[in-house]
C-alpha cells in the first residue's frame, strides 16, 4: 500500500486545472453531462468545459439559487448536471434548493464546490468554506466526496457523475502536492490505508492528506508508526473501517480543512462514540473564522500545520497509554 503514495510527495500542481480537464474528459465520455456555473467559470475552471462543449454549458449569472434549481430541472429531464460555484455558496445561499430538491426530491445533481476550505485565502473568510461538510452531512441522502490531489480529481469525478443521487464534490483552489501514484484506485464510500502503522491512526481528507503523510514520515524517524488513512468520502462514512483502525491502533486523529465541528472529525467521533470509544484528537479550524493571507500560512496559523498533526498524534497516544495503564492498575 505504500505504493499508493509518492515518496517524497510530488511538486504542487493545480487542482482546479485538473478538475477542468477531467470535466472535459467526462463530457467526451458522457453525452448526458451538462455543466453549469454562476459567473465564476473562470474561477472554478469549468470554462474549460465551456470552451469545448459550449452547447452543454450554462452560465446562469450571479444567481446561485437559480444555478441549483436550473440543474434540478435538467436532472428531472434525464441530464446529469454538474453545477459549479464557490463551495460556500452551495452550502449557504443555495442550501434550501439543495435540501429540498436534491436531498428530499432526489434530483440527480452533482455540486462541485470550488475554493473549499481556506483555499480562497486572500479573498478572506467570506469566501472561505469551513462548514460545508457539517452542513451537507446533516442532509439525508447527500454524498460528500473530497479529492486529495489532481490525480484523485481525475479518478473520482467519473464516479461522482455515475453515482446515483446528489453528490457534493469539494475542491481546492490552489496548487497542491501530488500525493498519489497511478496505483491509487479510490472508490466512493471506502477509506484507503496509505501508510500502515499501529501506534495511532491519522484519518485525513482533501489537501490535509499530504500533511498527514508528512507528519507520519516525521514521526517514523522517532520510531513511531502512524497509520495514515485517506477518507475521501465524508458521507456515507466508512464506519467499519474506522472501528477497525480504533481496534488495531487504539488512538485516532482526524485532519481536515474544515471546522473541527461537524465534519470528518465529527463523523469519526460519532462513529467511535457509538461503536468503539477510543481517544480521538481533531485537527481543523478551531470554531473561528480565519482571515485573508497566503494559503499555507493560513493553514499553519489556523491549526493545520504538520507540527499540529504530530502533536495531536502524540496527545492521542498518551491518552491511549494513560487509559491502558489505568486499566492495568485496576486489575491489580
Amino acid at each position, binding site marked *: 500500500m505504500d505504493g499508493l503514495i509518492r515518496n517524497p510527495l510530488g511538486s504542487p500542481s493545480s487542482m482546479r486545472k485538473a478538475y477542468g480537464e477531467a470535466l472535459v474528459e467526462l463530457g467526451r465520455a458522457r453525452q448526458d453531462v451538462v455543466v453549469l*456555473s454562476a*459567473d*465564476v*467559470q*473562470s*474561477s472554478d475552471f469549468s*470554462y474549460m468545459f465551456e470552451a469545448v462543449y459550449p452547447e452543454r454549458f450554462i*452560465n*446562469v*449569472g*450571479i*444567481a446561485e*439559487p*437559480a444555478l441549483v434549481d436550473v440543474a434540478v430541472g435538467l436532472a428531472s429531464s434525464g441530464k446529469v448536471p454538474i453545477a459549479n460555484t464557490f463551495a*460556500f*455558496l452551495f452550502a*449557504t*445561499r443555495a442550501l434550501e434548493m439543495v435540501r429540498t430538491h436534491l436531498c428530499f426530491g432526489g434530483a440527480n445533481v452533482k455540486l462541485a464546490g470550488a475554493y473549499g476550505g481556506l483555499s480562497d485565502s*486572500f*479573498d*478572506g*473568510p*467570506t*469566501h472561505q468554506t469551513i462548514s460545508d461538510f457539517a452542513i451537507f452531512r446533516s442532509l439525508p441522502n447527500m454524498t460528500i466526496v473530497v479529492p486529495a490531489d489532481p490525480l484523485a480529481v481525475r479518478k473520482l469525478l467519473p464516479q461522482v457523475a455515475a453515482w446515483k443521487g446528489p453528490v457534493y464534490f469539494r475542491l481546492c483552489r490552489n496548487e497542491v502536492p501530488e500525493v498519489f501514484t497511478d496505483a491509487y484506485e479510490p472508490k466512493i464510500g471506502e477509506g484507503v490505508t496509505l501508510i500502515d502503522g499501529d501506534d495511532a491512526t491519522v484519518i485525513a481528507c482533501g489537501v490535509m492528506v499530504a500533511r498527514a503523510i508528512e507528519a507520519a514520515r516525521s514521526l517514523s524517524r522517532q520510531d513511531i508508526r502512524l497509520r495514515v488513512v485517506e477518507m475521501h468520502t465524508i458521507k456515507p462514512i466508512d464506519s467499519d473501517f474506522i472501528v477497525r483502525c480504533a481496534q488495531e491502533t487504539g488512538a485516532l486523529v482526524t485532519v481536515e480543512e474544515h471546522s473541527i465541528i461537524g465534519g470528518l472529525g465529527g463523523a469519526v467521533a460519532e462513529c467511535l462514540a457509538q461503536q468503539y470509544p477510543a481517544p480521538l484528537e481533531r485537527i481543523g479550524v478551531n470554531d473561528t473564522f480565519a*482571515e*485573508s*493571507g*497566503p494559503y499555507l*500560512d*493560513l493553514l499553519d*496559523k489556523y491549526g493545520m500545520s504538520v507540527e499540529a498533526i504530530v502533536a495531536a498524534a502524540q496527545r492521542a497516544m498518551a491518552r491511549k497509554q494513560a487509559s491502558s495503564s489505568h486499566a492495568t492498575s485496576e486489575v491489580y
Partner: protein
Amino acid sequence: MTSPSANPVLANAVYPYGTRHTDAMVADLSRRAGEYRTHVLRMVYGRKSGHIGGAFSCAEILTALYFHHLRVDPARPDWSDRDRLVFSKGHACAMLYTVLAHRGFFPVDELPTFRGLDSRLQGHPEPQKTPGVEVAAGPLGHGVAIAAGMALAARMDGSKRRIYAILGDGELNSGVIWEGMMTAAKFALDNLTVIVDYNGVQQTGTTRHVMPTEPIADKWSAFNWHVIEIHGHNVGQILDALDRADEVHGRPVVIIARTTKGKGVSFMENSPAWHGGIPDSAQFEAALAELNEGTRAWTV
C-alpha cells in the same frame, strides 16, 4: 485615455441637468478619485491579489459620497445618527478602504497591509475589523435589503439620517436584490438611495452577455423606484444626483451610474480580464503612468 463613447453603456448616460457645484469642488474630488486609483493599483499589485476593475469604476462615486455628501465622523465611526453606506459590491473594497483612509477613518499607511496576515483590511469588508465599514460584503446581493432595514430603522427612530448602497450591475443578477427592491418600495423608503455602478462588465463577460439586465431603468421604475441616470465618472453629475435624491418624496431612489470598468487605464477598461487580473511589473508601470496623467489633468 479612451473616450467615454468607447463604452456602449455610457451611450445611455442621459443627464439633462447642469451641475450646481463649483468647478473647483468638482476638480478637487475628481483629482482625489484619480489619486485613489493609484493606491488601489499599488495595493493589488503589492499583494498580487484583489479586484482592480470594479474598484476603478466606483472611484468618483465613493469619493463624492465620503468627501461631500455623507454625514459621517471619522472620529466617531459608531455615531448612531451617521449616514450609512452599504458597500454591497464588496470585492471592490480596495477603493472603499482607500477612501475611508483618506477621509480619516484609519491611517493611509495601513493600506499596503491589504489582504495580508493580521491586517485590518481584509480581502472583503469586515465591519468588526475596519473602522467605517458598515456591513460585511463579498457574497453579492445583500445591499438593497440591508439598506432597506437601515432605512426602516432610521424612520422608526425619527432620524433624518440617510442610507446609501452601492451595487454592481452584475450583482443585479442576484434574486435577493429584487426582493430588497420590492421591500424598499413597499415601505416608500425615501431616505434610501441606491447607486448602481453600471459598468457593463461582470466576472466572466459583459453583463449583456452573461445575464442581460436592460432595460434597467424601466425595471427599477416598474418596481416603484425613482430613477436617475448619470455618467458615473462625472463628479458634478454624481453630486447633483445625490442632492436630487435627497429631495424625492414617497419613493426610494436609484442612481444608475453609467461607468467604465477599469476606468483610467486604457488596457484595463471594459475588460472582464481586469475584473480580478493582477498586473505584471510592466503593466503596473504603464497603469501608474496613465493614472498619474489622468490625475494631473485635474490639477491646475
